């Protein structure tokens, strides 16, 4: 026990001294701090990785915390860029926002489910617990196992805003805490319905068309598919030279290509 604790102490002091050293080194480097939405974070990390390969002088520090926390951090000037997976609300309007790409949310069913099209109203009613049985949608007499994301999630926030439109998600709806576990539930339960980020849809689940529009990058661009949210970078006033260089990289063809590869909707084809 003591030995282990001693070992821990040694590791910790090592770690502390390490961070101290790297702090000195960063002085002649350009540090960009970014925080916010955990939906945007993995893509920002990917972009940062690519950017730092070509620009060794840059250190990009990406943290999560959620859209709201990210915007708050920008307001307090604790980070340079905040990531948000929802639009700014009225209180936050004085901040600058840069849309880096769009992300579609697809409504997914089990591949065995014969239903291929739903209307926004039907989805709203399912999550509001007004439609409880698949029979009401023209399938067998079986309870609908709807799954939603947990309170505070950006995807849930976007879903509430774009689909529920002020109606509440009912308390009897099941809750999972990630896109991945929603996909897993829908992939294994033939009677389930869920919603996940478009980039994560594969053959394990079946996306439905909403009012006739298939969730594809093309339909999102033409505005036919409606359940789309922006991924935003939020800044307080003008960015400094270095942060601007990073943002310019994201908005360039190269940056957008990386995002497109991840299944997001960029600005170029």
């Amino acid at each position, binding site marked *: 026990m003591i030995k282990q604790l001693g070992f821990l102490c040694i590791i910790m002091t090592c770690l502390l001294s390490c961070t101290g050293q790297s702090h000195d080194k960063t002085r002649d480097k350009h540090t960009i701090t970014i925080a916010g939405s955990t939906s945007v974070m993995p893509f920002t990390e990917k972009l940062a990785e690519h950017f730092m390969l070509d620009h060794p002088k840059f250190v990009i520090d990406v943290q999560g915390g959620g859209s709201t926390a990210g915007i708050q951090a920008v307001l307090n000037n604790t980070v340079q860029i905040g990531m948000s997976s929802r639009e700014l609300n009225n209180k936050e309007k004085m901040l600058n926002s840069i849309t880096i790409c769009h992300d579609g949310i697809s409504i997914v069913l089990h591949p065995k489910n014969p239903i291929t099209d739903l209307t926004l109203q039907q989805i709203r009613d399912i999550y509001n617990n007004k439609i409880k049985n698949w029979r009401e949608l023209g399938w067998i007499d079986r309870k609908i*196992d709807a799954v939603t994301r947990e309170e*505070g999630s950006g995807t849930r926030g976007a879903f509430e805003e774009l689909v529920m439109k002020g109606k509440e998600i009912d308390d009897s709806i099941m*809750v999972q805490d990630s896109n991945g576990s929603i996909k897993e539930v829908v992939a294994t339960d033939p009677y389930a319905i869920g919603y996940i980020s478009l980039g994560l849809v594969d053959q394990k689940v079946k996306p439905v068309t909403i009012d006739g529009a298939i969730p594809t990058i093309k339909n999102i661009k033409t505005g036919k598919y409606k359940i789309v949210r922006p991924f935003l970078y939020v800044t307080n006033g003008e960015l400094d030279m270095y942060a601007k260089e990073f943002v310019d990289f994201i908005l360039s063809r190269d940056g957008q290509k990386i995002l497109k590869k991840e299944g997001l909707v960029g600005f170029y084809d």
Partner: protein
Amino acid sequence: MIEKALLKERFVKWVLIAFALSSLLFLFLIFIFILAEGLPLFLKVGVGNIIGGFKWAPTRGSFGIFPMIVSSFLVTIGALAIGAPMGLSCAIYLSEYSGKKTQMLLKPALELLAGIPSVVYGFLGVIYIVPLVRNYLGGSGFSLLSTSIILGVMILPTIISISFDALISVPKTYREGSFAMGATKWQTIYKVILPSAKSGILASFILGMGRAIGETMAVIMIAGNALKIPGSILDPLRTLTGNIALELSYASGDHRLGLFSTGVVLMVIIMILNYIANFGIKRKIAK
């Protein structure tokens, strides 16, 4: 020479004391930390609105966790309903019937069962129990029943080892006396051994309850986490621990405080259970 040895002796003793007390310190720090984070919301929203409230919508200012308290207890009772008879039977077999050899086989197996990480139980539940329940009984499978089954298995080692200790510590003279009166083995167990080991067995059930109520990972994976109080054993439900683990990653502001308040309630429940197990019941054995 001797003085040096004595000095070393004293040094070792003090080091050991310091480390021994550190566990107490950790407990104290955790206690203070959870209370400091959790209590402000109780003062702001009101204890009744949190513990007695039915609506959990932390981003819109409702922090009711009553359905989760009920669900936590339902799951625990379900786990006991499955784990207690199995565990007690196993403990009786181990202490009264089995020979040294089977004991040597069963005991390490049980220790292994206790050592399996809960995420593995959760995974097995999602892959096997949930589809079984869905296909044969209906519902989505993410339900009170599936969760109770998995938790029932998870609390087996706790119940078995503690009730085994209680059974084995019944003096041999009791058994011999009973046999001398002409009682059969089962009569002896039923009429003599079980009653005299009663408090230890109850303590094992209550510690099992504590384990079930505190389990998180496996529960999130198979309970379905719906906010409503389940209407049947096939309905999904959300426990107190599940609530904290599900939502902590995105929570900020009052939402975060709400999760800490959930933690305070959970801590109080577990403290009460441990108190009952340690002082209420074990004391009686001493008498």
